[in-house]
């Protein structure tokens, strides 16, 4: 796969007896956005750390732009824009000083790019990193990943701490980079974001890859948590009968349920009532896994 930007084969990491990642195979091509989905502790960060040569694999191979992640680690990192919320910063520096200093490692003058990105994301560069809120720290991380226009992006939970408006801005940035020909690999545990920004997803659970999906396929199976307050007292049985509906609970005049797939049948049912309030929320991936992948892993999600 000579034009693949990120390739891993059988990538495995054991921390003593405990598996961090087992036999992970990945392919991310230039121009593609691939999401890495999994519950907390599934192995996303472990896999990403091996790509960056932060930790050594127990076995398997990983290459970025055809270069071995371990042997040619410095050249790999020259081409990679990386973001992780695990990262620590030099708190006493201003955002500007920190970013300029980081830019120096690639001998680029990132000044204009830094300012443009800061304006786009709404970050005051003159503030000290230690004084920044979580969201603003995340912006510093995003700028540092994007400022040198890398060919490959490896982003671990890139939208953590960002408000919804900024998440949309980030999604636009990712699309622009993919259109420019960069390969983007990002991890998340929120299905909605992955659906909007990614072309494909790789799903990892209990250290193993359990599925490769196109986003379109995932959408058809994604879950929503729905709360509807009606006038009158609804009967649970009527809702349980609707296709795609599960986990129905009735509390006085309010119905709680989970919906997967098309909302059409449910909407038609609700339309026959007078609906006072309706809340539709995406279900966290952890819950979705409980529903779809219970039989692949080591049983219920009690153990992480």
């Amino acid at each position, binding site marked *: 796969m000579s034009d693949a930007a990120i390739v891993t084969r059988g990538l495995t990491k054991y921390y003593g007896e405990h598996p961090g990642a087992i036999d992970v195979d990945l392919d991310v091509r230039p121009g593609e956005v691939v999401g890495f989905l999994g519950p907390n502790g599934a192995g996303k960060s472990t896999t990403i750390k091996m790509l960056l040569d932060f930790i*050594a694999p127990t076995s398997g191979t990983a290459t970025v732009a055809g270069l071995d992640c371990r042997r040619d680690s410095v050249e790999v990192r020259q081409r990679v824009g990386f973001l*992780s919320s695990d*990262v*620590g910063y030099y708190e006493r520096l201003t955002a500007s000083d920190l970013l300029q200093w980081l830019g120096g490692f690639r001998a680029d003058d990132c000044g204009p790019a830094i300012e443009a990105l800061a304006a786009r994301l709404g970050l005051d560069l003159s503030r000290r990193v230690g004084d920044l809120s979580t969201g603003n720290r995340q912006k510093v991380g995003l700028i540092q990943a994007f400022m040198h226009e890398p060919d490959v992006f490896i982003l671990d939970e890139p939208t953590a701490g960002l408000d919804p408006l900024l998440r949309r801005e980030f999604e636009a940035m990712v699309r622009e980079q993919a259109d420019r020909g960069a390969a983007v690999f990002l991890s998340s545990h929120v299905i909605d974001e992955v659906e909007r920004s990614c072309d494909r997803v790789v799903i990892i659970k209990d250290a193993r890859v359990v599925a490769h999906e196109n986003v379109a396929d995932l959408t058809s199976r994604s879950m929503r948590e729905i709360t509807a307050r009606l006038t009158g007292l609804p009967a649970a049985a009527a809702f349980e009968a609707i296709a795609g509906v599960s986990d129905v609970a009735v509390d006085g005049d309010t119905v709680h349920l989970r919906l997967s797939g098309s909302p059409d049948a449910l909407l038609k049912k609700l339309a026959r009532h007078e609906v006072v309030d309706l809340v539709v929320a995406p279900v966290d991936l952890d819950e979705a896994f409980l529903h779809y992948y219970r039989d692949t892993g080591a049983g219920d999600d009690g153990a992480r």
Partner: protein
Amino acid sequence: MALADGGRLIARRAWLDRRRVRSWWALGMLAYAAMILAVWPSLEGSDSFADVAQDYPDAIKALFGGSEAFDAITTPAGFINTYIFSFMLPLLMMALASAAGASLLAGEDEDGRLQLLLAQPVARTAAVLAKAAVVIAEVVLVVAVVVVLIAVFGPLVDLDVGLGGLTAAGLGSALFGGLHGGIALLAGALTGRRSTAMGVAIVVGVGGYLLSSLAELASWLEPFRFVSPMYHAVAGDPVSNGVPVTNYVVLAVAVAAVIIAAVAVFRGHDLH
């Protein structure tokens, strides 16, 4: 070359980060040295103090660099050796370098800053060497400050030892400190824990100090004193006799060895 550039960026950042800590250390050492100088006029040629010093138990004399040195305590060279170079400056530089080495590698590993650093295109070797250079430079700077103070202000209180002897003794303290900075880097690369790294370096330093001191009192310990870095730093009384070449070469080789080991270990180390 890319390797050197990244290393230089890391070194500069580390040096600037430690500005505040370093200033306090330099000030503290200056204050201590100034105090020692201020006390000298009342001790100079004082027979009563010389008598008291002679009567100190051997164990105490050993901890202050040995009874020979202690008996010369009312001479300028003996005084400055006992109160500054025989154990005080070496041990303080050991503490400074251990703290610096521990925080620059293991400390940054613990708080995630190493991830930030190693996400950049810079080799691990360059990173460790840059940090080691900062630790050594810091120790050299603080020692130089003390040496200059004594050389410049000593004569004002009639304590004229000569810059050559002071520099020779200072070099010993710097090597001693640098060695333990290297040990802290190595222990940090092995464990990834700042407190462990500092603890190991300090235990080695204090252990070596006790070994070298007590070797004078316990004959069975004498052959082992060559293992003690403190022995090599202070034996031969550099203030009076100049640079003890063999001893300092041993120390320099040891410093290089621990730093090379730290690089090797760090290259295989899993970050937090």
